[in-house]
């Protein structure tokens, strides 16, 4: 009995100690400015999508506090917001979810006069955006696309094309993503169609092409293919550069070629959006503008090894991204499919289950 009481009191005191520690940490940050009521910006973003240093610099520069919560998929974010998980100011959905959130009336229109740095964004990129025509509700953050990584130790000659998955000689050494939009998008692009097509006929043709690829690949995998690629088990994989390069050490990177196939790919754009329920809209504007400062944006793009959509930031980047914006010229942003989603689901199910 005594022992139990001792444990309980230990646990309780342990907890309260932990709680006490945090506020003192915050005070240290606020001290130099000697201000009592620092504003707080609540951000809900993808895992590790903004380097910590950027957040710290922002806190220091504007004497505010940033709370950064993370999600790992658009669906997760959307479900949480829909379930009433409010209190966030800024969220970073991908394009298709921007249009869903606009339809669901969750977003505040963006007043671009409060974001002078918006003019730094590449107009060619902006012209490709259809999920939020004219960027009325969203400020683009980062764009990218799944590509193909090739282990050049084992595969010397290859065409920078999706047709690499047609090659019998690489059978059993290739994987594609377990992602309907990416794989069907690759097939649709190879056939010269849009990745957002609503035509059943085009989708059927894409299905036949994917079925040919399926004979040569080991599996559809979005989780462990990076490890298999790093181990030399797989020689050609479809995937996002971050999933592939994070698994490789510097020496191994020498033997890897990453390309966006010439036919184009299904691209994503992650965007900053302001929630209707946001409490701190002015601070959110300040933050969006801060992100698109060339110096800051270059720092983020370096960290993510992604190409910069911010034009002046391109000259300030220190790390060469794994592909350039120009490589994405033929790629298209993924749009919300609306009613056609069920056709895609149906076709994808036939692909993954069928022999």
């Amino acid at each position: 009995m005594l022992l139990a009481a001792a444990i309980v009191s230990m646990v309780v005191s342990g907890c309260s100690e932990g709680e006490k520690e945090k506020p003192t940490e915050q005070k240290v940050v606020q001290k130099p400015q000697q201000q009592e009521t620092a504003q707080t910006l609540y951000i809900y973003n993808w895992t590790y999508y903004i380097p910590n240093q950027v957040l710290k610099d922002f806190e220091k520069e504007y004497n505010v506090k940033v709370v950064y919560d993370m999600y790992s998929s658009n669906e997760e974010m959307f479900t949480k917001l829909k379930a009433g998980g409010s209190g966030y100011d800024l969220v970073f959905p991908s394009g298709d979810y921007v249009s869903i959130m606009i339809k669901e009336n969750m977003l505040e229109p963006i007043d671009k006069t409060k974001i002078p740095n918006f003019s730094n964004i590449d107009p060619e990129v902006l012209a490709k955006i259809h999920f939020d025509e004219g960027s009325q509700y969203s400020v683009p953050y980062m764009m990218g696309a799944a590509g193909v990584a090739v282990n050049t130790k084992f595969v010397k000659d290859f065409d920078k094309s999706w047709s690499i998955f047609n090659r019998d000689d690489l059978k059993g050494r290739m994987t594609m993503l377990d992602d309907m939009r990416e794989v069907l998008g690759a097939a649709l692009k190879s056939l010269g169609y849009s990745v957002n097509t609503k035509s059943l006929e085009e989708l059927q043709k894409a299905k036949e092409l994917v079925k040919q690829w399926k004979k040569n690949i080991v599996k559809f995998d979005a989780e462990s293919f990076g490890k298999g690629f790093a181990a030399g088990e797989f020689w050609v994989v479809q995937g996002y550069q971050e999933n592939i390069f994070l698994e490789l050490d510097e020496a191994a990177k020498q033997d890897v070629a990453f390309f966006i196939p010439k036919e184009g790919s299904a691209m994503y754009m992650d965007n900053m959006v302001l929630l209707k329920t946001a409490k701190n809209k002015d601070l959110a504007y300040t933050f969006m503008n801060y992100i698109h400062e060339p110096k800051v944006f270059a720092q983020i793009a370096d960290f993510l090894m992604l190409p910069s959509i911010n034009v002046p930031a391109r000259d300030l980047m220190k790390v060469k991204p794994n592909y350039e914006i120009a490589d994405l010229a033929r790629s298209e942003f993924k749009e919300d499919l609306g009613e056609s989603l069920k056709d895609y689901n149906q076709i994808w199910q036939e692909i993954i289950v069928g022999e």
Partner: protein
Amino acid sequence: MRKNYGPIYVGPVAFWLCAFLSVPLLITLSYSFLAKGLYGGVEPHFSLAAYRSLFNTAVLKVLLNTIIIAVLSTALMVGLALPTAYYIARSSQKNLLLMLIIIPFWTNFLIRIYAWITILGSNGLLNSFLMGVGLTDGPIQFLYNRGAIILVIVYTTIPFAIFPLYSTIEKFDFSLIEAAMDLGASKTKALWKIMIPNIRSGITTAVLFTFIPTFGNFAVPKLVGGTSSWMLGNLIERELNITRNWPLASSMSVVLTFVTMLAVLFFMRSQNKKEL
């Protein structure tokens, strides 16, 4: 005066089962009869759409594949566990042998699967060995097919067959075998005719303990399965997390639970009949 403490003893377990088994099952069941929300979730009106979309060849194929894998793995596990359990029960080193079976369980389930990948992969130990001694020129694809799934399932689940069999064989009175042999039966015949019927409860438990988790498995096919080795668990996971059709995921779970229950009832009943 003696008080009846029965309800109090049963209380915690009853609460546990209600809160964490019955209620979730009922929620799943009711979700399967609701309409699908546009972006996940359910709309609160009655719909049979989920059950209708179950009747397509894709789902039935996956169901068939799941049944094949579950039945084959269960047969293999019980077949391998019987002699193992028998040997342990007759050995003088029981505790040591049991310990050896438990030890791998101290390692995380996923790590054990990845270990198999490093053994069976194209650059794995087995292929390196085979190529090293010159048995094959190129690597053989051991992974990413149905055989790999069954192998890994058998490896990770077999203790659930060994332990119930061991505990019944251990209690079995082996003088009965001696008696049978005295009366002229061969050792094999004596084991088959005398021991097997007497440890039937252990066999039943072993079959149930291995069939049920295998039928609902989704991690193993995901990691070592290939392009055509989906199991029902993978389909449910996909409907729940990716296509976000919760009613369909629920209806599949209902089917999965239902098939498992049917199999269990069928099996237990055939066992009971034999005992009569």
